[in-house]
């Protein structure tokens, strides 16, 4: 039932603007605080998730989030929209800040394993991180009630009937919201599917 706590605490961030990432970065680069705040609301969770996966430590991941947004504020004026959309640029800034944080305290040396690991290699991990980045960013755009249903349906381990019971809504409403959420995510991710 770990997913319950997650699902309840998930919608803590204020609603997002519908401006594109590129527009917000450009406005932040011109010193617009409200644009920077909107970027923070949109990306704080994806950056933290990425940092947590890469660094494996909540404290260091928190530091990496702070460094990422300090870096975004400093370098937003260098963003060129003609070179590409905002999400990959933000991802690159976050990745660099997280790598720097990882270098700041190297992992202790360990003995070489006897057998090859079945864990994903660096290219696969990079791809997974990018997928998670896009999906978690898109989830921030869902209405709260749809985001809540997605969280419970996908990551809580509850069946649809249990989700309905937990939320106190009919099973049909759970299915309707799940489908609506997937359709909205499909629109947000348009061109990337």
């Amino acid at each position, binding site marked *: 039932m770990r997913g319950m706590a997650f699902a309840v605490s998930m919608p803590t961030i204020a609603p997002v603007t519908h401006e594109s990432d590129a527009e917000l970065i450009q406005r932040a680069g011109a010193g617009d605080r409200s644009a920077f705040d909107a970027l923070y609301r949109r990306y*704080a969770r994806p950056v933290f998730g990425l940092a947590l996966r890469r660094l494996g430590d909540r404290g260091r991941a928190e530091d990496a989030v702070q460094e990422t947004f300090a870096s975004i504020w400093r370098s937003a004026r260098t963003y060129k929209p003609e070179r590409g959309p905002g999400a990959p640029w933000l991802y690159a800034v976050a990745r660099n800040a997280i790598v720097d944080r990882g270098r700041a305290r190297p992992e202790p040396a360990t003995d070489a394993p006897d057998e090859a690991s079945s864990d994903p290699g660096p290219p696969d991990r990079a791809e997974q991180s990018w997928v998670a980045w896009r999906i978690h960013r898109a989830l921030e755009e869902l209405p709260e009630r749809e985001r809540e249903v997605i969280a419970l349906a*996908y990551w809580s381990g509850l069946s649809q009937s249990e989700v309905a019971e937990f939320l106190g809504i009919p099973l049909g409403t759970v299915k309707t919201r799940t*489908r609506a959420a997937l359709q909205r995510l*499909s629109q947000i991710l348009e061109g990337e599917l």
Partner: protein
Amino acid sequence: MTDRDFDDLVDVEGLDADEAARLRRVHELLLEAGPPADLPPTLERPPTEKREADILQFPLLPRRRLAAAVVLAAALAAAAFGAGFLVGEQRGGTRFDVVRVIPMRGSGGALASIQMGKRDEAGNWQMHFSVSGLPKQKEGGYYNLYLVKRGKPVVLCGSFRVRDHTTTVTFTVPYKAKRFEGWVVTEQPPGHHTPGRVVLST
């Protein structure tokens, strides 16, 4: 991650094949991405406003080190902005305006910064002291932040313990910092009552 069946979760009745395929792809991406991280309370709010802080330079620093320290302080100031320290931070409704940032360095890669706030009418001022890279001390041990005069730690600003990553503490002191040469951090092993080894200095 729970591997959920698309057909159990999504009612595709009435959807054309293309639309159903798109939703199935989103479903697969959700499973691949896994749950978003639960954002800690410290990161729930973005910084509130941009401010610039002066960097205080102490004569204690040799010329070459001074240049490096100024660069470090600028980096710390920028990082502190991201952390919400430099930015008219509001904790419990109390505003903290940073007017100066002082960098500190130590052996083993330890780094620290002192962010000085404005003096109040009575002559007290707050400092936010952030430090990383210091080893945890044994039970009963801690660190002290001192103002330095004639090369010696003479006035205690506060004591603190550290955890694994960056530790930030707030002290309030009534001293005029410019009458001193700088700051040092000393170890305070368990059972000792005089300043121990210097581990960080301005």
